[in-house]
């Protein structure tokens, strides 16, 4: 497997009003091309900070990271947050078109791709709806469609289903898996759900409480395509137990 991203002794210290706050300490890992990596850890440990660093929203105070295979070329990165973060003044279709508008994709082509994407997430009937008319699950589907339509090299998911109820959450996880299998891209997903991490990922990392460093790094050797039944696999249960014990 080719290496896509190398994170090297990454550290982040915030200089806030109440003095310094170290959020990340000495985080190193390698992400392979098309790999799906999940990050688990207590809240406030610095998981979002890692994603914000990788997305270029903030600059690290220590260490560095490098996108291996593309020297000098900035990789395309899509972010999905816990909240869908749709633009309320744009319809569903217009929200999904946004990344293509930014990339300057020609209108006809963009529409074609957006319509295909809307079908993939099952929102054909809502193409012209305003975000305020959507349920939480539907809004998050739009956010995922918007992330995938950009054809990102790296997809960063920050507790993407954290605000959804348990059932919707499971369904969305399955849908994400389906889309990811059709458009392979490297993914780093922050989640609080051990089973979500195990169902989706090639590898799982567990962060310590703040300042976050990696306490467990575990390869998930479960055959793909994984389904709901995979949850009852004894191997799955073993992984889950190990992760549960490592999260403080």
């Amino acid at each position, binding site marked *: 497997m080719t290496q896509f991203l190398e994170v090297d002794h990454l550290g982040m210290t915030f200089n806030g009003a109440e003095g310094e706050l170290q959020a990340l300490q000495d985080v190193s890992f390698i992400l392979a091309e098309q790999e799906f990596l999940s990050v688990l850890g207590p809240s406030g440990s610095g998981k979002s900070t890692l994603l914000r660093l990788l997305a270029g929203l903030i600059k690290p105070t220590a260490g560095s990271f490098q996108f291996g295979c593309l020297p000098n070329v900035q990789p395309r990165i899509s972010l999905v*947050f816990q909240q869908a973060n749709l633009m309320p003044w744009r319809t569903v279709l217009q929200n999904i078109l946004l990344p293509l508008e930014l990339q300057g994709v020609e209108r006809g082509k963009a529409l074609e791709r957006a319509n295909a994407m809307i079908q993939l997430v099952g929102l054909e009937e809502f193409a012209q709806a305003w975000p305020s008319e959507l349920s939480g699950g539907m809004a998050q589907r739009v956010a995922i469609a918007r992330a995938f339509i*950009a054809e990102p090299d790296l997809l960063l998911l920050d507790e993407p289903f954290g605000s959804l109820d348990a059932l919707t959450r499971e369904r969305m996880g399955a849908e994400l898996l389906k889309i990811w299998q059709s458009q392979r891209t490297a993914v780093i997903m922050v989640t609080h759900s051990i089973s979500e991490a195990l169902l989706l990922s090639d590898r799982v990392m567990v962060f310590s409480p703040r300042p976050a460093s990696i306490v467990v790094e575990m390869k998930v050797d479960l055959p793909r395509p994984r389904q709901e039944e995979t949850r009852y696999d004894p191997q799955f249960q073993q992984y889950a137990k190990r992760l549960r014990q490592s999260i403080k």
Partner: protein
Amino acid sequence: MIKQPVSESKSSGKRHKTLEKLARYNGWLVIVSILLVLAVWALGVLWGKPPAFLLPSPQAVWDKFTSTLADGSLLRHASVTFYEVLAGLFFGSLLATCLGYFLAKSSALEKLLSPYLVASQAIPLVAIAPLLIIWFGPGISSKILICALIVFFPVLVNTIIGFRGVPDNLRDLMVSMRATRWQKLHLLEIPAALPILFGGLRIGATLSVIGAVVGEFVGSDKGLGFLINVGRGQFDTALVFVAIFTLIFMALSLYGLAMLAEKRSTRWKSAHH
């Protein structure tokens, strides 16, 4: 420092809704109430017989209206005032929007300038209007300046609030997608701030009318403010009424236009399941 968008009063939101409802469902009620006021006015004049320079009858005002309309003087004066109002509104809000954008971006700049901006609001414009007319002459340009000055502050405040209110998450989203400065401005910042910007424009529109009249009062030979002065001087109170009603009509039309724009820019807010 500047935290609240400018609006007419604290309860204006509520009052707005009530007014809107009234206008929508009970359009006839408004007409009835206007007719009622006219009737009371007419009867009062009929029975009380006040001298015409105190309170002319509705009929006298209407006659004055048609005669000034027929000889073209009303339109001539109204269009001068309208021009001043529009030009002042345009330049005042253009400047305020540009400055407001930068103040919203840089809190250092805001801290630096806001003492002056706030202090400038303590100067009553009516008091310095004579000065402005001395400096810039009795023509149209001094009126435009007064309108622009009176419009400036509320539009500035709303611009700052509007651009500050752009959600951080959406900013992050745009940055992570490598949006250019221009893309961030016209795809995120302007649409997000637009409703509040239009709100500022709506208040600015009515203020601009006040500014024009104040300027014309102080010194001019045309405009509706001048017409009021003339009417007062000649004890032609009907003429004063005609000018006042024209001003009300002008202010309400501009207010309504700005409100329409505001509504159009937020039509996604009124969407329901």
